[in-house]
């Protein structure tokens, strides 16, 4: 550090002190520990000898299957509505757009249980909309897997919309303009040019959305109720198990953790880092 030549100034300094500065490393390590230690706690306390039997318990498998299928359905629904919504927010101007964008992100910050209460009051059997669904079509949503999917879409779709909107804003618009000047309709431009361009963003958003839906708890237990095989997803099973049998809750948590990790790692490698 003492050999800094006056002419090249700070550049040399930076290159020569190329070691990672401990003042950043220490807090970063603490941060990682804080995130990882709770999971280590799960691993340490897990009842390994009975693990096999517990994991293959039909009740566990049914909760896991319900979680995986509803989270996937919720992601599909979010893609169906979320991508056009993101396009509208990123590429058009309409009155109240900023307000709509704020609204879209509300489920990110409100407690999910609030979402569950709102859904119950709107779509429940006696809800604002739900009472007509019941009266006209005999359709009641609470206590059905559909209700689980609705709760998951409510909390998870904003993740998708935000990712896709960001991707759309970052994408180079010249390709779209070129396609348009060559006579492609707006829909064609979207389907053939825009969509392929932002596909990694959509995939990343979908992965986040799926993971968030998989972990959904508050809105689900409030709106969809809790019945094994119908509405009891993994997070609900964990919570209920914790009331009486903490070991079972640990096993369920580990399973959910492994599944989420596996999917997120795979998807990130495939879509996000590959760019």
């Amino acid at each position: 550090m003492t050999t800094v030549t006056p002419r090249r100034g700070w550049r040399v300094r930076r290159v020569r002190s190329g070691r990672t500065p401990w003042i950043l490393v220490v807090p970063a390590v603490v941060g990682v520990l804080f995130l990882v230690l709770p999971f280590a706690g799960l691993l340490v306390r897990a009842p390994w000898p009975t693990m096999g039997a517990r994991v293959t318990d039909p009740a566990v498998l049914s909760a896991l299957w319900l979680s995986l299928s509803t989270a996937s359905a919720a992601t599909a629904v979010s893609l169906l509505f979320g991508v056009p919504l993101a396009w509208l927010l990123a590429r058009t101007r309409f009155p109240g757009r900023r307000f709509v964008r704020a609204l879209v992100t509300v489920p990110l910050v409100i407690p999910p249980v609030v979402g569950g209460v709102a859904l119950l009051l709107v779509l429940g059997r006696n809800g604002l909309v739900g009472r007509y669904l019941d009266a006209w079509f005999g359709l009641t949503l609470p206590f059905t897997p559909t209700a689980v999917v609705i709760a998951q879409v409510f909390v998870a779709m904003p993740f998708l919309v935000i990712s896709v909107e960001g991707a759309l804003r970052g994408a180079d618009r010249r390709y779209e303009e070129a396609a348009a000047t060559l006579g492609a309709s707006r829909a064609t431009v979207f389907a053939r040019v825009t969509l392929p361009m932002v596909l990694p963003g959509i995939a990343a958003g979908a992965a986040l959305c799926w993971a968030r839906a998989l972990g959904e708890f508050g809105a689900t237990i409030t709106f969809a109720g809790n019945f094994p095989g119908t509405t009891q997803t993994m997070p609900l099973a964990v919570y209920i198990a914790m009331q009486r049998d903490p070991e079972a809750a640990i096993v369920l948590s580990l399973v959910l953790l492994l599944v989420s990790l596996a999917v997120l790692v795979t998807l990130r490698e495939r879509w996000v880092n590959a760019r």
Partner: protein
Amino acid sequence: MRETAPRRARPVRPARGVLAVPAAALLGLTACGAQDTAGTGDGLSGELTVLAAASLTDVFTGIAGSFEEEHPGVDVTLSFAGSSELAQQINSGAPADVFASANTSTMAQVVQGEGLDSAWAAEHGENGLVFATNTLRIAVPPDNPAGIGSVADLAEDGVQVAFCAEDVPCGAATRTAMEASGVQVTPVTLEEDVRAVLTKVELGEVDAGLVYASDVIAADGRVEGLDFPEAEEAVNDYPIGVPATSEAPGLAAAFIDAVTSQTGSAVLDDAGFGTP
């Protein structure tokens, strides 16, 4: 999962509708306090931490308020949560001078863990003192749209029923009662606690739910309660005790005396609990 920050007794405002019960208790206890200890004071003072089952929220808020009125030097901190959660807290060293549980098995966890204060236990019992009982009732929305009249009606096609999950005390009681009735009911949901069942009934999302008599009273007309004979098979005992870790066992004993006093019993009775 659920945070239960200890609550100060005084600022807690009971929910609308249940206000009448603690208010009456307040007047009652203050009146007798004034008679018994007029001007003398009994020297009771200090901090008292009371951990009580969530179903006792209204009752204990009222009793604690009167207790503080009666003993101006005493500061009661109340913490309400599920009994098993509280038992875990006590056994992990959380400060607790009084523990009131919604069932005997949860009290047993504390007895086997930290144990009860030996002097108090010698006088009132090794496993705590049962001070209240609670009986299951069928709760239905006010106009009883599904026309529920008995346990058998719960098994009818198209009747939506909410129960407590078997893992929580009200669920265990529900199971006992349903086994006694011999009726096979398939609920649409197994809620995480009894108040969640009550809410689903209040909102009319289900046609009926099994809750405690005290919950029907707490709902203050927003649900109707129906008695059913099999409930007698599943009466729930509420034990109270002074954990061995208490730093104010004398004060704790005085608080428990207030709970089990005639006035305390009257408050419990008004709230729908049975008293031994």
